[in-house]
């Protein structure tokens, strides 16, 4: 319970987790565990099965993809409050990019299988979580489109 109270307090400081109903926050806290990542630690490899979804509490993560001839390119950073490994809400999903801790980071990491089961059973949880995941992905998609335009190019 003490750990859940700490997690709930941390969730309240994230845009993903704040404004969730207390029981939803409690449920998320019970499904996840706090994890710390060292700088440059690889959290998820591109193409790997996405087994966990995470809500970044502090620090920064870099989403990278390997471009032959150019090496790894960071295409997005995940800031506190945002999520990573969102595809864990689907079974048999694989990571779209490699997730690396750009600096010392802490996240609430939620087991994907348990999350999917909980979403199936707990409709209130699903009703709270899916829109937030969708909003996070939509935000990322909108940003990606702008990056695609390469507006700063000559």
């Amino acid at each position, binding site marked *: 319970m003490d750990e859940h109270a700490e997690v709930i307090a941390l969730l309240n400081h994230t*845009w993903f987790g704040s404004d969730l109903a207390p029981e939803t926050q409690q449920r998320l806290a019970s499904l996840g565990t706090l994890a710390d990542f060292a*700088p440059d630690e690889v959290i998820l490899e591109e193409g790997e099965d996405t087994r966990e979804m995470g809500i970044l509490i502090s620090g*920064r993560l*870099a*989403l*990278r993809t390997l471009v032959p001839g150019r*090496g*790894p*390119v*960071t*295409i*997005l*950073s995940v*800031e506190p*409050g945002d999520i990573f490994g969102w595809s864990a809400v689907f079974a048999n999903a694989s990571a779209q990019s490699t997730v*690396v801790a*750009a*600096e010392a980071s802490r996240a609430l990491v939620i087991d994907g299988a348990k999350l999917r089961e909980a979403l199936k059973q707990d409709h209130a949880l699903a009703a709270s979580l899916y829109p937030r995941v969708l909003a996070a992905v939509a*935000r990322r998609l909108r*940003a990606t489109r*702008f*990056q695609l*335009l*390469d*507006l*700063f*190019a*000559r």
Partner: protein
Amino acid sequence: MIAHPVPSPTAAARHWFLARSDLDSLIDALQATGRRVIGPTVRDGAIVYDEIQSAAELPAGLRDEQSAGIYRLVARTDGRVFGYTVGPTPWKRFTFPPELAITTAHRTGVVDFEQPPIEVPQLAFLGVRACEIAALGMQDRVFLGGQFTDEDFRARRKAALIVAVQCTTSSSTCFCSSMGTGPEVRAGFDVLMTEIDEGFVIEAGSPAGAAIVAQLPTRRPTHAETGAAADSVEAVRTEIGELLPIAGIDERLKHQLDNPRWGVVAERCVECGSCTMSCPTCFCTSVTEHSDMEGRVSTTERLWDSCFDVAFAKVAGGDFRARPRDRYRQWLTHKFSSWMDQFGTFGCVGCGRCITWCPVHIDVREELLAIAPVIKPVERPVAVEPVAASPGDYSIARLASVREETEDTTTLSLADLDPAFLMGRPGQFVMVALPAFPAVPISISRFRSNGIDLTIRAVGPTSIALVNLHPGAKVGIRGPLGTFWPIEDAYGRHAVVVAGGVGLSPLRGLVEALVANRDRFESVSLYYGARTPDDRLFRSDLAAWAASGLIDVAVTVDRAGPEWKGRVGVVTNLFDMLSCDCSKIAAFVVGPERMMQASVQSLISKGVTPDRICVSMERHMECGIGLCGHCQTGPFFVCKDGPVFHLSELGDMYVREGI
């Protein structure tokens, strides 16, 4: 246009006086021409135009009280017969009937279509107001002014004898003076009457009118009587006042087709069509067929219709104006914008009927002011008179130093300038010229005590030539030009600066000023996006600002290698999750236009109002002083009305394609 010539030269005097007790003589004279007299009379609690036989049927001692959705008759303290404004029935019902048979068709072995003969009633219109005369003139343009004409209208119009009445009172719904159609009758009449306490000062406006007046028991009016008549008309003009800034509204409406207010007013509108039916200029019609059971003889009847009708724009494949907001927009933009293109005049005379007779109290004046307000330019003091302010003139400056900011962007520090350049303010720019190269506009990225910095991205021949100069070289400059950042907008507020790429250049001076006066602002934040880490400008300044603790600095890049530990993503991600009271933000935004648009949209969605968002616009400039015409954006010259604008000034023009 039906002509109403000036009074006959045989008239002994321009004005005559008719006693109130002799008013029936006017009606008798009109009837003696074989005409039926249509005049104001009370029916069902309103003053309508209908056939009258004598002056006793006129609304003596009554006046109307009108406001949005409200009409009532109240007693006057005198016996005046024209002491009201306008009722629900426009004169168009007599020149352009609500129902008219226009074709009879036969299918009896052969098919033929026959137009019925024009049967024109001989009418005299008694009590026509200035706005109504203007409306008849507008109908002349619609039905007689083009390639195709309505001969029934022509005949009815020609046959009608107009007895106009000067308005000596007004309603709160009148706005004829704003539309230039009243309150004073000046032309378009056969007889004109101005009612005063003792009777009527009258004048003839045509030979037919002169013939009528000649039959009346008139006398010359006294000086006091003509004076009272003139004063009462002038008093009405004062009473009405100037309500609508009508000039240019046709153009402003063209830029408001996506204004969300259309949806707001459409939610109130019940689409009853009262406005179009009572409007003296609306002319939309439909046709209906009446046939015998065998379809051998049918009559086509033209009926008044309304663009508010749900099926008005329907075709077999769909409906071009399916939504109520579409229909309301059509009506208002037609009346105040498209009419001007079609007929050279507004389609409104300011009679106010559409306001009075709207059951849900929609006031077209309020809607116009909300949808297409006059954009007043923000008055800002000119920082300093620019140096060398004519197209061929330049002041010479010496290049003191050159610093490469990025691979393609270089800062030139200029010295030995006219001191006036040092008096400029952040946001302003200079035109920079080199012999044999066209002058280019460059933002001043820093004002020094002894010079100015220009941060230049090498994208064209002049800029490439400039960044390749060496210290000691001379350049021609003109300025400082344009508008500057209104830092005072941010006093007591959260100052938010959003920069993209080289857009940080015109903002650097602003950031320095914000930091230098930090105690005047609730908070100061800089959100800066660049293409890659290597494309960031002013890195030492960014580090110093961040280290000062006086300003929150957040930097992001579009892409990076693994060595970059900072943010990656678009600049809007940096302030997507603002936690401050966004209604207290004053924002300053520069970057590629699409980036500015996204940033502005994000800020507005959070509650930042357009009058608190400033952008700097980039346009093709060749003179910098509003004389070459290249940089026009709508009514603005970006070089002298900008480049810094409040978003509220730009309105619908901002990032609209093709402007």
